[in-house]
Structures are given as C-alpha cells and as structure tokens.
C-alpha cells in the first residue's frame, strides 16, 4: 500500500484576484497521488476542487497565481517548470479528462486526428504508426466501429462516445497520472456507470494514479480508493473511501453525506379515493426538421401516446435520461408547446382546446418551477416584480400583488428585503426559492417542477426538496416532478413514470417500482445509479 506517490501536492496555495469572495481558491492543500489508486476530490461548487486539478496540469487561468507550495513529480517541482517543461509533462506524464466532452473536443477536427495529436505533440512515432495507435486506443476504450469513429467529427458522436474518445486521448501516452475533472457529470446515468467502469478498469490495468474530481457521493462510493473532502479551498477530511463514507469525522462531511438522498423510498400516506387534479390522455408530439427538397424530413417523436393522471395532493415523478421526452411532456402539459394529439384536462377544462386569452386566464391553475436558477429569472427585473407580474396580469391590484409577494417570500424562507433586489444578487438556492414563490403567487392547483433541483449543490438540493414537500402539504398542491435523478425521485414522489424515447414504459407507486421494476429499461436505470455498492475495501 505504501507505494511512493506519483505526484504529491504539498501545501498548495492559489491566490484569487483582488475583489473575489475569498483570498485563496486553494488554501494550503496537500494531496498525494499514488500509483494504482483513485483519489476522489469531493466538494460543492466553489470549493476549489477544479483549481487543484488545473494546477496539476499547469493550466491555471491567468487571473490566479500560485503563491506557495510544491507539486513534486519525478524528483522535481512542477511549479518551477517553464512552459517548455510543462509541455513535456502534459499529456505524456500527467493527462486530463474534462467535464464537458462536447466542448473539450475541437469541433472542426476528426476524432482520430485529435488522438494522433497526442503523439505529435511529443514527437513520437510516424504518422502511420500514430494512426494505428489511435485505432487501437479507440478499440481499447470500447468505442464501437473504431474505423468509422476515428474518421468522425465530435458532433457525430454521442456524449458517452465523446467522453470515451477523451479518455482514449488522455491514455494515449500511458501517463503516470490521470486527472479527471467531473468526467461523468454531463452524462446520463447509464452512460455514467459505463464510463466509471471504464476508468476504473483502465486505472487497474495500467496502475495509474488517478485524481477524480466530483461533487457526487454516489460516484465517490463507486470509484474512490481514497477521498479528500474540500470546502472553501481547504481540506476538511481525508481518508480511505470506507472510512470517509461510513465513518465521517467532520460535520461538513457528515452533512454532505446526509444530504445525499437515499435509494430507499420512505413510506408514503396512501392517496386512494382522491379526485384527479390533472388528466393527461394520449399526448403525441413529433418534431419534424425539414430535410430540404430531395431528402426525407427527419422527425423525432418526443411524446408518444403519453397518458397519466395526478391525484390531488399527489406527486408524480417523471423519470428518464436526456432525450427521453420528459421535458417535452412537461411543456406539453404546461401548454408551452401544443401537442399534435391528446388532451390535458384540469378538472372540467381541456387546456389543449384553449388558445389566446382564454388560455392565459386558465394558466394560473397550473404553474411551473424551472431547472436553471440562473436562467429562470429575468435578470433585469426586481424580485418583487418577478413574483407579482403574474397576479397583476390576471387582474390583481398591484399593491395587493406586492403584499402577497412579500408574504410568499416569507413562505419560501427569504426576507421581504429581497423584493427590491435583482436576481443576480442571490445564490442558486435562493433563486430557486424565488422561482417557487413566483409559481405559488397565482395560487395554482398543480405545480410542474422540471428538474427543479438538478442544478443545485447537494446540500442546497436537500433544503429545496424539503421546502417543496412542506409547501405541497400545506397548500394541498399536486405536483408533476420531472427528474433524471432516481434518488431524488425516490424521496419525493408518490408514483413514478419512467420514460424512454417518448414512451412511458412503466408507471408504478414509488416503493413498488424500486422494489420490483418490471421493464428492462427501468431495471437498467436503477442498476446504474451510483453509490449502491458497498464502498470498496482498502487494499
């Protein structure tokens, strides 16, 4: 176990530019990366974990500067290297995989060429040998049809394939150290599981030291040998995965772990005999892109005969991966897009039959909470206006609406002073609360929450979920809860519908779904959720 570290970061201090919220992005961190071991660096956004990764590659932005510390590698100090020295290290000795595989690949170059650049950068091999190597790498990371893939451009690949290509590239020169910066965050859960397995396998096979940056404790549980927990640029806890996950010492770690939703659904009060709040019958929506004159049109079926209902006071979860059509269904229900066929019935009125003014009036009965707390609030309107605009549009007196907005802010846990401020002055979680207040301002019967907590850090996510549960109960709301995260769904939903390629493949009470999934896709999804296996034992 006591192999010499491949790299060791010693007392690293990275200064932020003047005027930032804290003086140091990374404040005296020391981490050893040992061959054959995966170190997970965990933290919430702004913890400085990404800075660490970039420091290791000598890729820090110009605005920050390393103040003190050492990165010991091969008997030298990486921080002392000049640009030429760094170039020699990068790729060859330390390689990196980034979070967003789409933007991390040059869109104008073929995948194979980008792989071959790895060798070219270090003047290795002949062009012909490089090509052969690239093909071999594509095969090794499990890319299907490698001959075709190396000639393809990034946009022609799926997200998972792109990340595989990135990994292939990183491994090309058999580096001693691999830095992976949230490599699976942008991926679907089933793909994430595959990529995690791939990294794990490769690391084992090549005996690499891996620094794995993530915010997700599920992932940590699946992949980590050792864990380093960061907060505000400092290490709060460090230890083997087993130790940290099962016996966290520091309060922060404990809180983080506690905030991770469990895979075991809680027991929920039965809802039989209640009236239907919403009835969705046979929704169909096909997106057609014109193919030009001589080519057939391309069409994507976003919703295919989607039917469900939500009882009063019930939360229905709609779960699926990206492209499954779950967001389209949310927008169809909200009448943000018109279905080709089908009905959305609220009590006695059929929303799909309404248009123009009549629809606008009826809209107050069903409101929506959006995914992105940064994009869902108009940056140029004050929070008070954002909340009161809706009621005013429905004829409420402006003063009354403002007063109500103040109350609602209180209800979602913000003080009334927020009325006069602009959205950018709030944190992500606070914004999401404002979004909830806006939805509640119209006294809706139903709330549609589209990935309402997906963009939030895990601790904030827990708080917002709790708030939603509380409000729902207090106000007697029904909810359509759209998420990709089965853990979240497990905690909040009464029933769950699983969507795949526009079709609801399975719809069951939550506990039943988790206990005995029937559809193969449901099973696949459940199996892919990270962090279900016991934490790996220290070797």
């Amino acid at each position, binding site marked *: 176990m006591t192999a010499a570290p491949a790299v060791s970061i010693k007392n690293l201090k990275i200064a932020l530019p003047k005027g930032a919220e804290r003086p140091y992005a990374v404040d005296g961190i020391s981490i050893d990366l040992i061959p054959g071991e995966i170190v997970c660096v965990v933290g919430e956004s702004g913890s400085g974990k990404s800075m660490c990764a970039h420091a290791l590659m000598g890729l820090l932005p110009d605005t920050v500067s390393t103040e003190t510390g050492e990165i010991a590698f091969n008997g030298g100090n990486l921080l002392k290297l000049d640009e030429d020295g760094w170039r020699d290290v990068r790729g060859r000795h330390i390689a990196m995989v980034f979070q967003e595989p789409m933007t991390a690949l040059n869109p104008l170059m073929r995948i194979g060429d980008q792989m071959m650049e790895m060798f070219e950068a270090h003047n290795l091999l002949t062009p012909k040998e490089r090509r052969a190597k690239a093909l071999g790498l594509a095969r090794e990371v499990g890319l299907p049809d490698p001959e075709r893939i190396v000639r393809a451009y990034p946009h022609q690949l799926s997200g998972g394939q792109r990340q595989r290509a990135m990994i292939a590239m990183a491994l090309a020169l058999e580096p001693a150290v691999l830095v992976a910066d949230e490599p699976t965050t942008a991926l679907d859960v089933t793909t994430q599981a595959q990529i995690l397995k791939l990294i794990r396998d490769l690391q084992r096979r090549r005996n690499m030291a891996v620094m794995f940056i993530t915010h997700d404790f599920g992932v940590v549980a699946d992949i980590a040998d050792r864990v380093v927990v960061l907060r505000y640029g400092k290490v709060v806890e460090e230890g083997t995965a087993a130790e940290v996950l099962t016996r966290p010492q520091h309060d922060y770690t404990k809180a983080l772990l506690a905030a991770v939703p469990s895979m075991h659904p809680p027991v929920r009060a039965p809802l039989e005999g209640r009236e239907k709040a919403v009835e969705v019958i046979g929704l169909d929506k096909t997106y057609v892109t014109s193919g030009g004159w*001589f080519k057939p049109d391309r069409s994507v079926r976003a919703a295919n005969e989607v039917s469900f209902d939500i009882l009063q006071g019930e939360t229905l979860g709609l779960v699926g991966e990206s492209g499954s059509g779950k967001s389209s269904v949310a927008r169809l229900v909200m009448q943000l897009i018109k279905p080709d066929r089908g009905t959305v019935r609220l009590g006695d009125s059929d929303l799909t039959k309404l248009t123009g003014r009549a629809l606008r009036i009826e809209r107050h009965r069903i409101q929506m909470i959006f995914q992105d707390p940064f994009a869902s609030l108009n940056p140029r309107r004050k929070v008070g206006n954002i909340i009161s605009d809706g009621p005013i549009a429905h004829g409420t007196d402006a003063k009354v609406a403002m007063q109500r907005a103040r109350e609602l802010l209180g209800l979602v846990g913000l003080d009334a002073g927020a009325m006069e401020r602009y959205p950018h002055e709030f944190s992500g979680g606070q914004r999401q609360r404002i979004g909830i207040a806006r939805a509640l301002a119209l006294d809706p019967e139903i709330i549609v929450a589209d990935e309402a907590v997906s963009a939030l850090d895990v601790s904030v996510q827990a708080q917002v979920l709790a708030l939603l549960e509380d409000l729902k109960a207090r106000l007697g709301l029904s909810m359509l809860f759209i998420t990709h995260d089965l853990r979240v769904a497990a905690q909040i939903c009464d029933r769950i519908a699983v969507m795949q390629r526009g079709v609801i493949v399975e719809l069951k009470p939550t506990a039943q779904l988790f206990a005995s999934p029937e559809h193969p896709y449901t099973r696949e999804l459940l199996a892919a959720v990270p962090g279900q296996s016991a934490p790996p034992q220290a070797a």
Partner: protein
Amino acid sequence: MLSFVAQRIVKGVVVLLAIVVMNFFLIRLAPGDPAVVMAGEAGASDPQFVQQLREKFSLDKPLPEQLLSYVKGIVTLDLGFSFRQQMPVSKLISERIGATLLLTLTAFAISLVLGIFFGTLAARFAGSWGDSAITAAALVFYATPIFWLALMAILLFSVYLGWLPSFGYDTVGANYTGLAYVGDVALHLIMPAMTIGLFFMATYTRMTRASMLEVKRLDFVKTARAKGLRDNVIQRRHVLRNALLPVVTLAGVHAGTLIGGAVITETVYAWPGIGRLMYEALLQRDYNLLLGVFVVCSAMVLIFNLITDLVYRLVDPRIEFAS
C-alpha cells in the same frame, strides 16, 4: 450538396425577380427621365425631340407593359438596351464587370489575408504594444472616409513620390503585351485595391483578433494544451481555424456587397468598373442600365453568399447540406 445548390439557385432567382420589380418602380420614381436628360445635354429640347426619345425608349407605354417586357427579357438573360449608350446593357456590363471583379476581388484577397494575419498577430500578443499598435491602426483605417484616403494616397504616391499611376486600368496607348501588360495593370491596381482593402482589412483584423481571443477561452484549447502541444500549433490548428468561422461569414457578406460598393473608389481612380457605371446611369436616368447593374450586383451577392455557405460547410463539418 447538389440539391442544396439547386435550392439556393431557385431561391436566388425569386429574390432577383423581386429586386427587379421593386427597383423597376423605384427608379422610375426619381424626378426626370432619360429623354429629359438627353434633351438637356443636346442643348435643345423641343417637345418633338423629347417625344421621339420617349417613343424610342418605350417610355410612352404604360408602366406594367414596360415591366412585363423587361421581365420577359430578363428571363431570357436579356437585360435590355441602354437608352443613352445605345447599346445592349449586357454588353456594357460585361465590358466593365471584369475590371470591377479584378479590383474588388484583389482588394478582398488583400484585406482577408492581411486582416487575418494582423488579427492573429494581435491576438497572439494580446495586451502588448504590438497589439495596441495593430488595434489602433485598424481602428483608424476603419474610421477613415474612403474618398479621403483615396485622395491622400493619390497625392502621396502619384504626385509627390511618382511611384504609382493615379488613374485608369492600364497605361493608355502603351500597348503592352504579355507580362508587361499584367505588370502595368497590377501597377494601376495597387492604389484602388489598397484603398478599398484597408477598410476591410481593418474589419477583419479586429474581427479575427476578437474571435481568436474568444476561441482561446474555449475548452478544447485547454484540451490541446493538456496534450502538451506547442503554442503555435494550438494557435494555428485549434484557435485560428475555429476563430475564422465568423470571419468567413462576414467576408462572404462583404464579397458580394463590395462589387456594388466600389462607386467612390472607381470614381476617384477612374477605374472602368460597374460601380461608376451604376452611378452614371443613375445620373442619366438610364433605367435599363441602372436596373441591369442592380440585377448583376445582386446576383453577385447571391453567388458569393452561396460560395460562402459552401466554404462554410466545407470548413465546418457540423453543418450538413440541408437547408
């Protein structure tokens, strides 16, 4: 790809017809007509004379009838007859368009090559004095009225230094042949091409610089650095290529409009191109000729737009040949 081109051509023809119709009426809204102008120039204008001219130009017929016969002509690629010059419009334009294309395309090539070069240089050394100098020079050229620049250039290079001829397409009466002729034309071409070119060069310099700085921040550049690639390889292969996409788009828009836009340069340097022809036709209310120039210039715009799109599609694999 063929279907894409076919589709664009059909669309272009529709646009052209619309342009013909609009301009046909627009031009006739201007006060005065060619008969009045010619009578004025002849120093005599009895009604009989003006009436003769009107009949000769078919201006006495109702407008829709005139339009119909013009459109019929256009369909068979006949641009009509120039009232004033007593010649088919297509002949007049074809005599001139070569000069315009030579001028504008040279200017275009110079501006694009130099603009990208300087823009790249400025972006490479962003923040240095060299960058500031290039940026400042680009701004100044961008802000200089083109006719002023032209006059100053003539004064400097023709009058004071005597290096370059101040007007014309070639040395009249010199009867050069072969390479000597090419050299002669090239000598005449330098000033007008540079005058137009400097403005656009300034545009491309600024655009390339801004675009490169933007691309520099993108993730894949970080990837390239993480590979250990040399900086100039990164700049060339990753940054520049991506940064050029918006420049290509802009350049495509320019290439077309340049052709009709060289009025002033052609006037100052007596370059026998169609920009000048257009302006003269306007001043003489030579309707058919003016319309003809508009149609040809618009067609050029469409052709260059198409070429740009094709180039764009070649450079950027993300765009497929569908509309």
